[in-house]
């Protein structure tokens, strides 16, 4: 059985497909009502000019992490048994100042492309930069298949997104359940969820847990083993 990460070793990334418009029902609730407010945003997707243009009206800071592009090196570290090394590899993908706190985190459809263990590590890496009320926008697919890599999302307005799917062979979709996501990503609660027409579930998460409770939960999560084996039987190609 091939591993979750097997696939073609092409150095070039999959090409983007045509742009598709998608309604967002949750983004508006994460934005301040007044454009005079400042907003500190973390975009885990690639840099898009439209997103910069959209958030510039609020002032503040936009940080682009392009998390998936740096994930390959972190995945090499996760093959080891050393939990500290895995956590460090993920933390290196988010090299922010310790005093940084984000109001809004845009995860887009990244969660679909992470294993359960990686989701836990991602949240552990994000937790130091979250504060009470930090909002996280994420899309989780409910379809059987999904594109080979995360789509690129651009914000047209508070209710409309434009996404570009990656070309290439579709891979099986893990179809993560809400309960499983919340179990792995300690500290998050679901503010709202919306079923979109394209088969995506739009989640509006909110960070609520205190730092002490998170520290306790994180240590407990490391003690019991997370299930590394995915539920799908066929393997995706990259």
């Amino acid at each position, binding site marked *: 059985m091939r591993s979750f990460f097997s696939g073609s070793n092409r150095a070039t990334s999959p090409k983007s497909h045509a742009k598709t418009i998608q309604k967002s029902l949750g983004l508006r609730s994460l934005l301040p009502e007044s454009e005079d407010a400042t907003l500190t945003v973390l975009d885990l997707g690639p*840099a*898009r000019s439209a997103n910069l243009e959209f*958030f510039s009206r609020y002032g503040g*800071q936009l940080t682009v992490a392009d998390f998936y592009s740096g994930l390959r090196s972190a995945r090499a570290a996760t093959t080891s048994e050393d939990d500290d090394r895995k956590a460090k590899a993920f933390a290196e993908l988010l090299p922010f100042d310790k005093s940084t706190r984000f109001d809004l985190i845009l995860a887009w459809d990244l969660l679909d492309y992470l294993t359960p263990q990686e989701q836990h590590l991602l949240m552990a890496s994000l937790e130091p930069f979250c504060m009470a009320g930090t909002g996280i926008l994420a899309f989780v697919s409910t379809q059987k298949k999904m594109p080979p890599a995360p789509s690129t999302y651009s914000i047209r307005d508070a209710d409309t997104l434009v996404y570009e799917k990656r070309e290439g062979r579709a891979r099986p979709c893990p179809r993560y359940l809400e309960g499983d996501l919340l179990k792995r990503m300690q500290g998050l609660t679901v503010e709202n969820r919306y079923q979109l027409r394209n088969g995506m579930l739009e989640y509006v998460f909110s960070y609520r847990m205190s730092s002490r409770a998170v520290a306790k939960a994180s240590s407990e999560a490391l003690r019991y083993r997370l299930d590394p084996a995915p539920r799908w039987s066929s393997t995706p190609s990259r």
Partner: protein
Amino acid sequence: MWGGEMRPTTLQYVVLRIRKWRKWRHRRPQRRPPVSLISGGGRSVSIKGDLYGEEDLCIEGRIEGKITVKKGRVQADIKATNIQVAGEVEGDLTGREQVVLLDTGRMHGNIKAKSVTLQNGAQFKGSIDMESAGGGQKSQASGAVSGKANGASATQRL
């Protein structure tokens, strides 16, 4: 060695190819480290004029003028009036007026400017301070930028 009727077996052939590859690997040109413009104190170096190069460049100091690096990478914190990136830059950019990342630009660092333009296709990792140099901040989705360079260029107008 294999003249006459003697022919290499498959294993011998593979071993020979591996040996040849190892020799080639050691001979092939290695990427040179970036050219460093530093003095004993590092940041006390100040250059007025245009700088042009075709290899990686690491700057610790101050340059007043134009920097054009073709096929290379600039590793520096750049402060200028207008900055246009068409190649690879590692460092912070502070533009008094404008910072533009062209579609061929790749940047890892932070940007502070009154106006930041990011063309689709540009690769960027870092933060963009949207509250710099006092209000009125604008950002443009993609502008028609005339002239592309295969490198990073920074222009400072005095």
